[in-house]
């Protein structure tokens, strides 16, 4: 029988906490930027202009067809470093964190765009007509009537996507970033207590995600509109 040795975990907690902060940062940035960008893409996708609509559709298809790991590597190897060097020739950044932020934000935007598009389309034609009849321009109809209602309906889906994102952020280990999972893996390797660290990290992900999805389920019950 395997003898568990948990003794190196307490001493590693400060490092794990630092890693968790990185994980949370990536998740938050990807949610905020992803939803903003996703909203723009969704609106473009539904626009009457065939070129804008096709461009938005191409964006969504592209990012949804590529595995996230490859998007991360692609941003690291080809996209972010040259752009940053071109924009800030003298700047000194934590490039890996920036790569994680942008890759996740752009990747998540394609998923959020589809959720938001469905939300927009779920608002009835009658609501649109009522807003138009009051003299609202297309932009005002979208901002004042459609999006506020669509987002209310979408909150559970947006949060579910955020939970998936929180878990997926562990993939940043491929670009050498020490997020929560990355730190756990490093400590596991250096202490030799691999099983314990991976079990511990898994338990933390499990508890956080279960808590979040319970909140989502409560919200689903309360949102009537």
């Amino acid at each position: 029988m395997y003898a568990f040795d948990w003794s190196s975990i307490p001493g590693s907690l400060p490092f794990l906490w630092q890693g968790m902060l990185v994980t949370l940062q990536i998740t938050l940035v990807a949610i905020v930027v992803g939803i903003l960008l996703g909203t723009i893409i969704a609106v473009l996708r539904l626009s009457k202009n065939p070129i804008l609509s096709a461009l938005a559709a191409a964006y969504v298809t592209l990012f949804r067809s590529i595995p996230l790991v490859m998007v991360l590597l692609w941003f690291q190897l080809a996209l972010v470093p040259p752009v940053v060097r071109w924009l800030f020739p003298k700047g000194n950044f934590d490039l890996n964190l920036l790569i994680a932020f942008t890759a996740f934000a752009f990747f998540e935007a394609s998923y959020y765009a589809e959720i938001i598009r469905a939300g927009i389309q779920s608002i009835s034609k009658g609501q649109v007509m009522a807003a138009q009849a009051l003299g609202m321009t297309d932009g005002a109809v979208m901002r004042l009537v459609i999006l506020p209602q669509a987002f209310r309906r979408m909150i559970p889906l947006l949060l579910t996507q955020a939970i998936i994102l929180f878990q997926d952020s562990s993939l940043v280990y491929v670009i050498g970033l020490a997020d929560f999972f990355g730190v756990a893996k490093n400590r596991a390797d250096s202490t030799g207590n691999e099983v314990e660290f991976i079990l511990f990290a898994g338990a933390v992900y499990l508890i956080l995600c279960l808590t979040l999805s319970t909140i989502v389920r409560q919200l689903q019950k309360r949102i009537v509109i």
Partner: protein
Amino acid sequence: MISIRDISKWYGAFHVLKDCSTEIQKGEVVVVCGPSGSGKSTLIKCVNGLEPFQKGEIVIEGTSVGAKKTNLPKLRARVGMVFQHFELFPHLSVFQNLTIAQCRVLRRSAGEAEEKAGRLLDLVGLRAHARKFPAQLSGGQQQRVAIARALAMDPIAMLFDEPTSALDPEMINEVLDVMVKLAQEGMTMMVVTHEMGFAKKVADRVIFMDEGQIVEDRPKTDFFSRPNTDRAQQFLSKILSH
């Protein structure tokens, strides 16, 4: 004030409106009736450009609805519309439903918009419900709020698209009472409805539509006493018999 000239509209191959023409004078109340599928709702939605039409012209106080250069939102802001299913904005309170377009479209100050909203809620008898949300109101109350919302824009005319068809019978009169009051105050109104009591009471003219055509367009008394066509006669006998 509203001039509808030879309007034709197709949904694909289906000819919904066939050369419809009529004039509505300032202060006139015109009731549009006819069997379902006759094009009444489509016609009234063409008046403020909510439905496009392929042929003909609609002119509201000198502005052509179908013209490319027309600023449709600006024109619509001057014409009130009330829908069959109320279409209040469910994420806004009753009060906000009345102020949002005043502030965002007409650029009125919050104070001015709120004062106007308060007065209109008094008019429809719902001042006490100002802070509620539409889902908390009955159908009749929602429709009265919808009328107040349209009136808040100080419209030059009001369009009603079957305003009582989705209501429980006991709520129809509270809505009709508000509409009668408006008509008596001289509002220009185009009303798609089956409420012939309302038509008899306040309409100046009645338009009867069938299969996309305006079959009769006559002063109320003529229409009710001796309809010209068999089709209108049958329709009247059916809806007036109960």
